[in-house]
């Protein structure tokens, strides 16, 4: 069952170029059906999960590839499978203007499977395996346009990701050698008997592994790939570089911190301070770069960098509440960012405009898209009543509760970042809706909102943003039970 949800996307993806579809809509229906079915299957699996581990294969020694559904997997798998059908729907419309559709959908669907693999992995090795695989299946997507820019971007993406994985690998080794098992167990698996006297080395390796996985999560010195990867088609940027790929990085870090090394081992050590400082710096850095950036998607990408570090900030607080904060932001940010990316994509698709200064006055011609963009912008800023506020509240609350002085500074960083978020998001909104006195409306006269395939996901996402904003209780409760290990 677990394997099937990973395999179905693989099979579907491979079938896309193989089956000779006569009409485009047939392909669309086929893909969408498969994806939706798979999502339903995933949700069914999550809701009716058993605690048993499914062993797929022995790798070497006591290392094996196995899958299991636990709280964290439920969060991530649920999130991914909820977003994917919408993203696919959106992609159909978006890709009408792009080439080599089949290759695109092949890898796009493969990525679904791989991401689920990361989510459902039962041990560190399996996760690492899918993590590397994720890099590989997403590279063709980044390269898709095959322009020089795209090639440079994907090259950079590969360097960074593989390089990061190399260091994450060291963490894996530590867990294999010093842990009692590589399975994920909340609270960590390190064996105190083995680690005695080696604490500092382990901490050093933890920091390395953190930064290694952090490459995917675009932690500061290693974030350069993400804005560049924005050359990919928007469905990719939106879903992968705002959700699936980068969140896998964050997810992996959470797994590493909470489920492998264990917070008891890490809390209060220099390692925690080190990673927390890095994360805090990234929060501010990402935002500042976003303010400076004039390319719409790249600006959003920088915003993603900053927001990912919110998640990591929650994770490195290393308390259950911190984990709750991280998970909340993991999920909510996904919805907000995918929504804003889709808006950006819709604008690009409809108008071909890529730069922020080209968006003047579009608000009157694409009110739906930009209205939704405004909502997601406000949510990202953290206006109360929208999803972003809840997650920030949880994060900051956890930081304040932790009593860690550096975490207090982290709250300040969050707020500075919120201010910068306001700057870079609202300037867009203001431009779109208040183009200025001498704006010539004729330049936008033949622009209109996109069709339903693009709008439907947008509407759904904005509804979710508001819903999470005003009524997040059940979700947060669920996260709480994940963080305390009840689920």
């Amino acid at each position, binding site marked *: 069952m677990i394997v099937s949800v990973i395999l179905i996307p693989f099979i579907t993806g491979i079938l896309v170029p193989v089956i000779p579809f006569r009409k485009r809509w047939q392909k669309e229906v086929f893909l969408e059906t498969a994806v939706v079915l798979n999502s339903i299957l995933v949700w069914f699996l999550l809701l009716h999960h058993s605690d048993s581990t499914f062993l797929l294969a022995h790798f070497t020694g006591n290392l094996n590839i196995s899958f299991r559904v636990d709280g964290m997997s439920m969060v991530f798998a649920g999130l991914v499978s909820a977003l994917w059908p919408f993203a696919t729907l959106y992609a159909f419309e978006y890709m009408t203007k792009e080439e080599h559709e089949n290759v695109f959908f092949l890898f796009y669907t493969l990525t679904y499977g791989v991401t689920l693999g990361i989510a459902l992995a039962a041990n560190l090795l399996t996760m690492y395996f899918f993590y590397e695989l994720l890099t590989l299946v997403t590279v063709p997507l980044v390269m898709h346009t095959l322009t*020089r*820019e795209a090639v440079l971007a994907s090259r950079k993406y590969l360097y960074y990701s593989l390089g990061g994985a190399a260091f994450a690998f060291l963490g894996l080794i530590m867990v294999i050698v010093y842990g009692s098992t590589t399975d994920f167990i909340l609270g960590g698996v390190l064996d105190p008997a083995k680690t005695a006297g080696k604490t500092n080395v382990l901490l050093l390796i933890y920091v390395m592994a953190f930064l290694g996985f952090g490459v995917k999560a675009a932690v500061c010195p290693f974030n350069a790939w993400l804005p560049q990867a924005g050359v990919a088609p928007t469905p990719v940027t939106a879903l992968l570089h705002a959700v699936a790929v980068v969140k896998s990085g964050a997810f992996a870090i959470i797994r590493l911190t909470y489920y492998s090394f264990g917070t008891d081992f890490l809390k209060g050590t220099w390692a925690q301070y080190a990673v927390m400082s890095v994360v805090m710096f990234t929060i501010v850095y990402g935002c500042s770069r976003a303010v400076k950036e*004039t*390319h719409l998607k790249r600006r959003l990408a920088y915003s993603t960098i900053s927001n990912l570090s919110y998640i990591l900030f929650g994770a490195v607080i290393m308390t259950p509440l911190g984990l709750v904060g991280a998970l909340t932001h993991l999920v909510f940010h996904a919805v907000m960012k995918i929504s804003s990316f889709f808006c950006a994509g819709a604008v690009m698709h409809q108008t071909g405009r890529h*730069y*922020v*200064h080209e968006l003047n006055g579009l608000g009157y011609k694409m009110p739906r898209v930009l209205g939704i963009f405004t909502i997601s912008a406000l949510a990202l800023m953290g206006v109360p009543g929208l999803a972003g506020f809840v997650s920030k509240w949880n994060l900051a609350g956890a930081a304040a509760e932790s009593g860690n002085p550096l975490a207090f500074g982290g709250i300040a960083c969050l707020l500075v970042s919120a201010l910068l978020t306001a*700057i870079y998001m609202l*300037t867009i909104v203001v*431009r779109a809706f208040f183009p200025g006195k001498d704006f010539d409306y004729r330049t936008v006269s033949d622009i209109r909102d996109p069709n339903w395939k693009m709008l439907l996901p947008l509407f759904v996402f904005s509804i979710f943003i508001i819903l999470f904003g005003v009524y997040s209780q059940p979700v947060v409760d669920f996260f709480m039970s994940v963080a305390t290990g009840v689920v």
Partner: protein
Amino acid sequence: MSRKKTAEEYEKTFAFRFFRWLSGEKDPYIGNVEMQPQKKYEPDHEAALRREKEHDAIMDKVYDTGHNRWLHLFHRLYQTTSVLFCLFLIALLLVTVSYLPANGTVTRPVNNEVSARYIEKGLEETGAVNIVAGMILDYRAFDTLGESHVLFVATITVLILLRLNKTEKDEAEVSDRRFEPKNDAILQVVATFLVPVIIIFGIYIILNGHLGPGGGFSGGAVIGAGLVLYLNAFGFKKTERFFTEKTYKWVCFFSLSFYCLAKSYSFYTGANHLHSVIPKGTPGAILSSGLILPLNIAVGLVVACTIYAFYAMFRKGGF
């Protein structure tokens, strides 16, 4: 003495900026947050190619040994360090040598049961009077098999390097005629006398390999020297009558095959503790010591041909 500043000067002062901020006239994002179009990324193939060329040019310069001062300096440094390295190595080895067992004494570890048995039982077990020959062709025959193949593979590489194809060969022939000695009367006369002697001596060494100093390699080398002398005196035309590449090929092939097969048989029987049908013969007689004599002959043939082949190759690139 103070004077009134001009407006421009004033605008640069701290006071002006402070006051501007105080009165709320400074806009922090004018010029900062304002969106300016960025330059679009242009793929630049030309530049890449140019870079590559420049790189090559630089490399050229680096490798230009005549004119590169740094390279000279580097060479100096390299030479000095090499000499120092050599001295260091000498010192190291001398120290090592000084700790080695003393030379010429019987008590050294070298003189153990191994050499003792070779000397004591060698005659009996191999049938060779020359214990060294017995050792290399019987006790440690695998080494020697390898060794002959070293020679073989060396000739192969020399062939690869220097053998010419048909057209080149003709040219080489012409230049060979022009530059090499030919029809030198003294040489020819002396060679007429010497060559048979040399070759017979070589054959003697080969045949007596198991009885006294000598063996296939040395004898073969002597024969080869005789052949080379013959070639020098009479030229390729004469030698080609009896020794061509084909001859060489087949001689080598048969000798080595024989060597291989014979030794295979010997090893096989030895390892499987089978009785070898090859008789040891009477020690001291020509026809004795089992396989050693035929092997010496085979090796001698190969070596003789190879020595000659080396010479021919070096001189002309063919036979």
